[in-house]
């Protein structure tokens, strides 16, 4: 069964450092997303990406965040200067047109 794959599973980074979270969406999907879940809180939408551009973003997704689809398979989330409050589980998801979103297993980001 096709699945969304995320790497790394756990990333520890120092405050102020840049971090890149990587995702390989399901191959025939057209829509790509990043969500995050801070410990003990709900899953929150960050950004959606379609046709090589951001289609929607939340207020969380400020200038320190960026997304990219550098080739035909990868979808990345970059955080330019990490803050302690960026510590969370980050989930990548993908969907086809008019289908549900399938999520990856997540990357646990710990900012120290």
């Amino acid at each position, binding site marked *: 069964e096709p699945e969304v794959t995320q790497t790394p599973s756990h990333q520890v980074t120092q405050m102020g450092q840049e971090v890149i979270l990587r995702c390989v969406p399901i191959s025939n999907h057209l829509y790509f997303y990043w969500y995050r879940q801070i410990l003990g809180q*709900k899953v929150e939408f960050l950004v959606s990406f379609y046709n090589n551009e951001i289609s*929607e973003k939340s207020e969380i997704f400020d200038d320190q965040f960026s997304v990219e689809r550098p080739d035909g398979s990868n979808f990345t989330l970059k955080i330019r200067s990490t803050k302690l409050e960026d510590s969370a589980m980050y989930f990548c998801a993908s969907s086809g047109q008019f289908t549900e979103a399938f*999520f990856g297993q997540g990357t646990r980001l710990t900012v120290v």
Partner: protein
Amino acid sequence: DQQVKQNSPSLSVQEGRISILNCDYTNSMFDYFLWYKKYPAEGPTFLISISSIKDKNEDGRFTVFLNKSAKHLSLHIVPSQPGDSAVYFCAARRAGTDKLIFGTGTRLQVFP
């Protein structure tokens, strides 16, 4: 952002019985609703969805009911199995957008 609410943080059900998980929403523009299941250290797994033009959708042991006038949906699992023990998230999507708004989740425990 409290547009999607799951007021029961936890539910305990005996194996073989019915599990009923509830979800309320406030935004009448939501037109698509989903239930996801999540195990620790994994991403949300899609279970079942329902469009706002329907009031019921069934898939095996899982049935979702939608009451638009009450802005309420529920997930019924029957019969419940120990493997169903997980956190269940209700999510909603507004027409014309991609993003999912998640509830806070209900932890279901199915005991023998």
